[in-house]
């Protein structure tokens, strides 16, 4: 019964996405209809996907289907277990919202890009991401993984007439292939051990892999999937590629595509390797997570292009997810099953949360771009009055990513904190000390993220408009508001109802940690979350939310009781005697100046100030020019040398490629002779 339902849903899902790929290109309608057709199909696909995810999460047995192919080693095998179902659900939720949003958003590409092509690629992208999650054969996985990378590349270069978009696309294309190469190595190690690409044989090898091979598989998987996820120092492509893509695509890339890498890591470490690993693996993941979280948010703070800022925050949040997973791995290797499950659960909870609020924020950024035609925050300002809905949704997203109670980000970050603090149970002094330090780094990350979104929301939506674009901005069309509203409500629900989410996640985590912790974590009849023990720690998001409302009402009552009347008077802001204008406002650059100064060892800022004085007197400046840059450390010291090496090598090799046909024929001839000699 359930199997039939799953079967229907899987076909429904691919049917809708498939229709979305073919129909817009095939039909000869006007671009409005094509738009509606493409994104309508994607939205239906998303809805089916949500149902499929829920069914998969609730199913008692994994569901699988396979169809052989003529290519050796390749089988088109798909499998829906709770882990896959969870990621399908995440992708489909974000996909549904992005598709609805796109109906309004892609209108402003009319005339600049081919809308049917954009819609078709968008459907293909969603479909390939879902296939990556469902694939149950290494070869097949690599094919759809590559498909996902290529389709997203084509979407990134939608506005290819701009040079920087082409550069971003190329950068992304190279990085993603470097990552894929490492994943291939990891899979080949498994293949060499079991002689098949089927994930089932990876899972249950006849004889376990030797330790050395396992370690190589661990490292190559971390690098390969880490490139896609954007861990430091492999994160450099994110702030280029994510802003360059159309915003609804950025939302999917930053919200869910990078999560396929998290899926890959969990699949390899906990499923294929069965959670059998030494403690230092977990420590490496934890370290990578802590560094990514901290550096991600630090670079985000200095970014004034709203979409680049959000891309850096993806690096940060991937770091937070890895902190949870890393802690889980450490616990696992010390045999502390309950805590291992908790760490993994915290990481996965943050995965879906980040997918929701990051997609929401990117859609919000897209709305700002749609309304003002710029991504530069310094040209926004005062938009909350002009775009109240976008502002409200963006605020919900900002509160969630800053982990303010009672939003979803708070719940999952809190769970990550708890799993780090349970470290005192580990029988190893180094880990006992390192996990709380990681907790302190997470605290710093959290509060820097708060500062960053105070900046982003404050500069963009509050005070006076800073440019004529912002002065004339208008609220975005209905479908865009709907898409954002959907994600905003999911964010709130995920925060207020953790007692519903945790048991579902427990079904995902349970098989890997070989323990079910839902009954322990959901305490007090579902009113509170208590990792393992109510006496150790607990929170109750619904009570917190209710009490916040009661507190605010109490404030209002006190105001009435003591003051009586609630009328207010309006006046101008005191501007020290001069009229307030955008030039007197605080800028985003000014806002982060103290942070830049305090952490200057990390940023290595260079400031250039040129002043042109009046000829009559050096006391009066005619013009000032201020420039400031932070040093792109990773690019300068890690990537530039590599690029240099390859381009000089290529230059040297050019000697043999002289452009003469005779010479090339000679090469072929010589090669043939040499091969013949070998053959004989």
């Amino acid at each position: 019964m359930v199997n039939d339902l799953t079967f229907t849903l899987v076909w429904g899902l691919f049917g809708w996405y498939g229709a979305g790929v073919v129909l817009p290109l095939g039909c000869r309608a006007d671009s409005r209809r094509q738009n509606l057709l493409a994104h309508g199909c994607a939205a239906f696909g998303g809805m089916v996907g949500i149902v499929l995810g829920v069914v998969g999460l609730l199913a008692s047995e994994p569901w699988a289907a396979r169809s052989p192919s003529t290519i050796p080693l390749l089988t088109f095998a798909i499998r829906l277990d709770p882990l896959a179902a969870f990621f399908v659900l995440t992708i489909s939720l974000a996909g549904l919202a992005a598709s609805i949003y796109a109906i309004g958003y892609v209108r402003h590409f009319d005339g600049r890009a081919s809308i049917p092509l954009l819609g078709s690629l968008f459907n293909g992208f969603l479909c390939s991401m879902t296939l990556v999650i469902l694939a149950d054969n290494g070869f097949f996985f690599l094919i759809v993984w590559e498909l996902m990378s290529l389709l997203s590349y084509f979407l990134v270069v939608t506005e290819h007439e701009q040079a920087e978009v082409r550069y971003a696309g190329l950068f992304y294309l190279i990085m993603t292939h470097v990552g894929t190469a490492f994943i291939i190595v990891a899979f080949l190690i498994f293949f060499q051990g079991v002689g098949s690409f089927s994930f089932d044989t990876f899972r249950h090898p006849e004889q376990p892999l030797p330790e050395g091979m396992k370690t190589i598989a661990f490292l190559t998987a971390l690098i390969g999937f880490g490139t896609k996820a954007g861990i430091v120092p492999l994160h450099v492509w994110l702030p280029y590629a994510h802003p360059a893509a159309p915003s609804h695509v950025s939302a999917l890339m930053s919200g869910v595509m990078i999560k396929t890498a998290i899926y890959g890591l969990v699949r390899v470490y906990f499923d294929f390797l069965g959670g059998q690993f030494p403690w230092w693996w977990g420590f490496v993941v934890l370290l990578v997570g802590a560094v990514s979280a901290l550096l991600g948010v630090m670079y985000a703070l200095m970014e004034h292009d709203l979409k680049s800022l959000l891309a850096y925050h993806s690096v940060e949040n991937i770091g937070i997810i890895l902190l949870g997973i890393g802690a889980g791995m450490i616990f696992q290797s010390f045999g502390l099953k309950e805590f291992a499950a908790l760490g993994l659960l915290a990481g996965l909870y943050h995965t879906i949360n980040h997918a929701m609020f990051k997609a929401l924020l990117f859609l919000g950024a897209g709305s700002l771009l749609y309304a003002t035609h710029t991504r530069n925050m310094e040209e926004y300002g005062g938009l909350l009055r002009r775009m109240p809905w976008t502002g409200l949704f963006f605020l919900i997203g900002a509160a969630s990513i800053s982990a303010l109670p009672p939003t979803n980000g708070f719940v999952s970050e809190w769970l990550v904190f708890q799993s780090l603090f349970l470290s005192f149970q580990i029988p190893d002094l180094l880990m006992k000390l390192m996990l709380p330090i990681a907790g302190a780094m997470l605290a710093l990350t959290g509060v820097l993220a708060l500062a960053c979104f105070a900046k982003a929301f404050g500069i963009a939506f509050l005070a006076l408009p800073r440019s004529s674009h912002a002065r004339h901005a208008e609220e975005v069309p209905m479908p865009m508001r709907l898409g954002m509203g959907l994600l905003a409500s999911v964010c709130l629900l995920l925060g207020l109802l953790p007692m519903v989410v945790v048991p579902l996640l427990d079904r995902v985590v349970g098989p890997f940690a070989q323990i079910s912790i839902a009954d322990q974590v959901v305490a007090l009849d579902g009113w509170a979350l208590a990792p393992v023990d109510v006496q150790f720690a607990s929170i109750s998001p619904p009570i917190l939310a209710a009490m916040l409302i009661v507190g605010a009402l109490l404030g209002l009552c006190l105001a009435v009781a003591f003051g009586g009347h609630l009328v207010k008077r309006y006046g101008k802001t005191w501007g020290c005697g001069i009229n307030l204008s955008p030039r007197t406002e605080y800028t985003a650059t000014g806002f982060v100046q103290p942070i830049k100064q305090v952490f200057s060892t990390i940023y290595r800022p260079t400031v250039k100030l040129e002043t042109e004085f009046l000829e009559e007197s050096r006391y009066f400046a005619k013009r000032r020019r201020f420039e400031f840059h932070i040093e792109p450390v990773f690019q300068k010291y890690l990537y530039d040398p590599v690029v240099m090496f390859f381009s000089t090598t290529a230059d040297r090799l050019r000697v043999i490629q002289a452009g003469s046909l005779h010479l090339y024929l000679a090469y072929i001839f010589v090669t043939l002779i040499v091969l013949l000699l070998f053959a004989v």
Partner: protein
Amino acid sequence: MVKVLVLIVMQTVILLGVAPFIVGLIRKVKARLQCRRGASVFQPYADLVKLFRKQPVVSTTTSWIFTATPYILFASTLLAGLLVPVFVSTIPLSFAGNIIALVYLLGLGTFFLMLAGLDAGSAFGGMGSSREAIVASLTEPAMILSIFAIALTAGSTNLSTIVHKTALLEGIVSDPSPHLMAFAALVIVALAETGRVPVDNPATHLELTMIHEAMILEYSGRYLALVEWAAGLKLLVFLTLIANVSAPWGIATSLEPAALGIGLAAYLAKVSGLAVLIGILESMFAKLRLFRVPELLGVAFILALLGVIFFYVLRG
């Protein structure tokens, strides 16, 4: 259920009632140390009533964020206070949030206050928000780690459990050094988080020095009253935290009237003592330059870290 509600209401009343007194007491101590007579310790109550009665003036450039912020700030600070045991060690709301929830609730208030600072569009507010951002980011790691050091000795991050166990001298203390270091770190954190000298000066209105006052510069009338009350409340929450987490002695561990009475008296004595201490500290030190503040907070972080290390090393 009734008992629970009564306890919550009692705690709310005590927190809201004592907060202005603490502010007044610190002012009084400072005045006496400056050889002034100073205003009555009850002056802040009169100030609040006066502010509530005045009609607020709101800038035309602001949005709803500006008028909503005082209520959000007030609610989040009060809720943070309700998570800390005040005069009874087992409080009804302790299950709703542990120490990390408390830190993040205070963060909620800070976030909206920073937005409100930017909302009016004047450079003062922006400057305040920007400085608040850096001070908050440097205090938080020290705060989390110092609390963790204390949580380790009590084996819990739940404030009620920590206080209860510490009050009954469980898990304490063959060697109190982790506790003492965490205490020192918490005092520095409290000074920074509540905008006191040497990090910020609550009495200043000079743009070069102010942080908190700059953010709330545009507030007036009942909005200002709520913001000021919340600021006093935040100070009280920190003092309560320090007093009851590191020295919970005297706190009621049962609900008998006599124990409650002693608990209340002990609480008032402890927070008053800490308020006097803050008054003295504020008179002894000059305000630091903003860019010297990281060093101070770095000290707090190291102290907290040492607290954690000492715990593990001493217990083996």
